[in-house]
């Protein structure tokens, strides 16, 4: 007959479960230390930002966003107007362009030319004052030209 089992008579085995993987206890301290150390991804220069209260951080973010938007608007406006750009083009090139293309230049434009730039008109028309006068006299005396 078997003797009844008594715990006090049984040899005590401290670990009856299968042991952990080899090297487990050598690695565990490092794994624990990794978990308790602060993450290195946090930039020390910006750590003050994390300490600000949430409403202040929200306000700061909104201000930065609006500021950025305004700055991009200001920078996108070109400082030169169309007339300034045109003024930068040499006059001789402008005249060449007008003579070479089928640009529609009205008589009024031509009439303005001698008054605004007499030297240009003289250089390109090669006409004496008498010839100019005759050409003007030959134009029909329509009210629309006056």
């Amino acid at each position: 007959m078997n003797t009844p089992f008594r715990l006090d008579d049984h040899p005590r085995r401290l670990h009856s479960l299968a042991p952990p993987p080899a090297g487990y206890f050598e690695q565990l301290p490092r794994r624990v230390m990794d978990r308790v150390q602060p993450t290195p991804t946090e930039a020390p220069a910006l750590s003050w930002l994390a300490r600000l209260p949430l409403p202040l951080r929200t306000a700061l973010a909104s201000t930065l966003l609006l500021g950025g938007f305004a700055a991009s608007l200001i920078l996108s406006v070109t400082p030169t107007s169309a007339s300034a750009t045109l003024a930068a083009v040499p006059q001789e090139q402008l005249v060449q362009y007008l003579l070479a293309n089928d640009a529609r230049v009205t008589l009024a434009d031509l009439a303005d030319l001698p008054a605004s730039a007499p030297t240009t008109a003289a250089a390109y028309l090669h006409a004496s004052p008498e010839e100019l006068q005759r050409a003007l006299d030959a134009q029909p005396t329509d009210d629309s030209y006056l």
Partner: protein
Amino acid sequence: MEDQEILTKFADPASRNLAFNQLVRKYQQRVYWHVRKMVVDHQDADDLTQDTFVKVWKHLENFRQDASLYTWIYRIATNECLNFLSAKRRKFFLPLNDVGAELLAKVEADPGVLSGDEVEQKLQKAILRLPDKQRLVFNLKYYEDMTYEQMADVTGTSVGALKASYHHAVKKIEQYVNNQSAND
């Protein structure tokens, strides 16, 4: 390194990491096996052991030395285990005793989990059939060889209740092993 020296070095920011590393090295095996006997599975035991030491790190600065460092660490580990087991019970809608049955099933599904002769294996299965808190009391007394006063520090239970719980646990285990042997 003695516990007091660890605590002194931990209080100094310059030597805090070194002191904590020494603490982990000193207690890791005892904490791991204490947890492992409660949850059986190595992966669960690994997670809970790490969680225990992370909590030790967070609260060690406020450790008041009313109890020894040893029993304080055990208390954290024990709470981690009991919380884990009750969360498991809630998650799977298990009745009170069925976590033990689940652990038993885990052991029976993988014969390599338990070592030792036939009687030893019956003993281990008998221990796993105990309710969580009684199993905890049994493990602390039988395997850790703690005094009832130390166990009271760890569990927050009176010495008298612990003695009664251990006595009942031993009776249940002996009865289970004897019944199993009679059925063989």
